């Protein structure tokens, strides 16, 4: 049975207008973090829930190709040099209002707290496919790790942002999909 998800910029708000636009950014810039709330209409919790990114689906309207865009985004996260580092980042500690110290950096691409990922830069092997999805956690407002509870307005949220490498040499529009993978039992 398919359930309906609602993504909003306020708890209980109307569904987001897609696609999410992270803005036009200069080299070395970081976009303003966007906080996104999620809820669903299932009668049971969704389980094994987590985020990953993949090549943009649908009609491509970027500057290269969907495959090149996702490869580049992941390479920004993989970067071995600070000037090449960037990419798509998630912060999950909504209960602490996404503190600055929990956003990932070049030196700390994954930020852990209590053994759980609270901040991450998507890169090869981390948030790049369903196998390596970034799990939802209680710090997001979930009642259990890996689960999003049922309810009209469960107050589950995360924040995301883009970081552009200081040394990036190619201007243009990059597109990708951010995906929530989950299990559901009727």
């Amino acid at each position, binding site marked *: 049975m398919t359930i309906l*998800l609602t*993504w909003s910029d306020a708890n209980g708000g109307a569904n987001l207008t897609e696609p999410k636009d992270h803005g036009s950014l200069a080299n070395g810039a970081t976009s303003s973090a966007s906080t996104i709330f999620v809820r669903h209409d299932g009668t049971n919790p969704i389980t094994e829930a987590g985020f990953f990114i993949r090549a943009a689906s649908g009609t491509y309207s970027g500057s290269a190709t969907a495959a090149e865009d996702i490869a580049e985004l992941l390479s920004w996260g993989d970067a071995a040099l600070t000037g090449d580092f960037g990419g798509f980042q998630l912060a999950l500690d909504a209960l602490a209002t996404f503190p600055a110290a929990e956003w990932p950096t070049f030196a700390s691409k994954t930020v852990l707290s209590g053994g759980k990922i609270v901040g991450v830069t998507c890169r090869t092997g981390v948030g790049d496919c369903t196998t390596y999805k970034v799990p939802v956690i209680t710090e997001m407002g979930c009642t259990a790790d890996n689960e999003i509870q049922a309810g009209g307005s469960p107050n589950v949220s995360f924040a995301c942002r883009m970081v552009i490498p200081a040394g990036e040499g190619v201007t243009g529009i990059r597109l990708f999909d951010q995906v*929530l*993978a*989950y299990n559901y039992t*009727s």
Partner: protein
Amino acid sequence: MNRWVKHFLDGHIYVGSDRDVLYQKASWTRSQNTNLVKVELFHDNWLLSIAGPGYFWQSDTYEALVGSRDSQLVARRIERQIEADDRLDYKEVIQSPISGERSFCEARLTKTNGFPLESHVGQWIVLELNMQKSRGFMYFSNKRL
């Protein structure tokens, strides 16, 4: 119509279709889950079946784009928890009736004197139909999915 069928010890069955679930006329979690001897899952031209008796579970995996209300079905599965006194051979059925091809998937489960290894007890034997690969899989999981 895609559906699961619960077969009970006393011979009666309970069917939960996607349509019934949508209209809240059926539920896996809110219907009887004890005294089952077999569960079948029908999806399009596929049949997944595990024999019991035992504790069964059914779940689906979905993917949703952030911002999109709709989800895409990625996988459907049925699961059965392995019990210490199982004498089953774990040859379960994933069948594609449209082609008539029947695939017996034998899990790589080592048994001692006909019983499961202690390390397997409590794990779950999973039959999964992956929509993206249009294939059936059998595997073990240390937790209910």
